[in-house]
């Protein structure tokens, strides 16, 4: 599968799937957001960090479920019913979503939210029709989680 984007398009010009997790809005490049899934009961993994809520089986693959709010140091939720399935070359993650706002073009002068930690893989502030969003950099966030979980 090829994940390259046309070279003339910038991050902001591409479509992004916008969703809420807790009180914040996030956006993920549309080509990385495979689908929005209804979460089944999750299997908890022993020794997993608090942002890793559990796993579920999806089309013959085990998918970890990440609570972005907890990962980013906020107040996590406990009753998520849906998640955005994010796919990169090395695997898939499900990011919990309290609301999905659809695909939008994000505008704004984007910069990494931090030099370190998971925020280093988010850019903002992006302007979407439903409010300010933090844009997730899928490969970077995936690798961060692979190193730290």
């Amino acid at each position, binding site marked *: 599968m090829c994940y390259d984007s046309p070279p003339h398009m910038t991050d902001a010009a591409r479509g992004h799937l916008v969703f809420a997790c807790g009180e914040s809005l996030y956006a993920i490049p549309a080509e990385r957001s495979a689908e929005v899934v209804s979460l089944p009961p999750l299997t908890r993994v022993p020794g997993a960090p608090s942002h890793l809520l559990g796993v579920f089986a999806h089309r*013959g*693959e085990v998918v*970890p479920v990440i609570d972005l709010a907890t990962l980013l140091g906020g107040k996590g939720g406990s009753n998520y019913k849906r998640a955005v399935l994010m796919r990169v070359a090395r695997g898939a993650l499900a990011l919990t979503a309290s609301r999905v706002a659809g695909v939008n073009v994000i505008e704004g002068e984007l910069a990494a939210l931090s030099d370190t930690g998971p925020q280093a893989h988010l850019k903002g502030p992006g302007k979407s029709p439903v409010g300010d969003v933090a844009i997730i950099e899928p490969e970077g966030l995936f690798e961060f989680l692979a190193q730290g*979980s």
Partner: protein
Amino acid sequence: MNPAHEIEGLVLCQAGGFRFAFAAATIASIGAWELSSGEVPLARTAFGLPPVPGKLITDERSALVVDSLEVAAGRYPLLGVPVVLSRTAGGSLAGFVATADGPVPLLKLTEFSAFVSGQGAH
């Protein structure tokens, strides 16, 4: 799912309501364990739970206490470990057993016992 990815024989365990499994072929012995039986790593530690009496399982190098267990014969589909979980629980995840009730973590006893011992020491 690749039908070649199967496992035959499981020791299905519980700790505080959480499920996990070991390959039956890797387990050397199963016995009772009481709180007075001496220090052994408890699976409950990995879930942040206090100790209770349970079953002691061992392989050639290590031991672990679980709340309860059952031995299941037969072949079960085995799913791979996601990259994001490759270091979780001290790298003790060997896969996930696909069941009707969802995926069950398949653990390597020696690595998981060592991981739990490290958690208990903190």
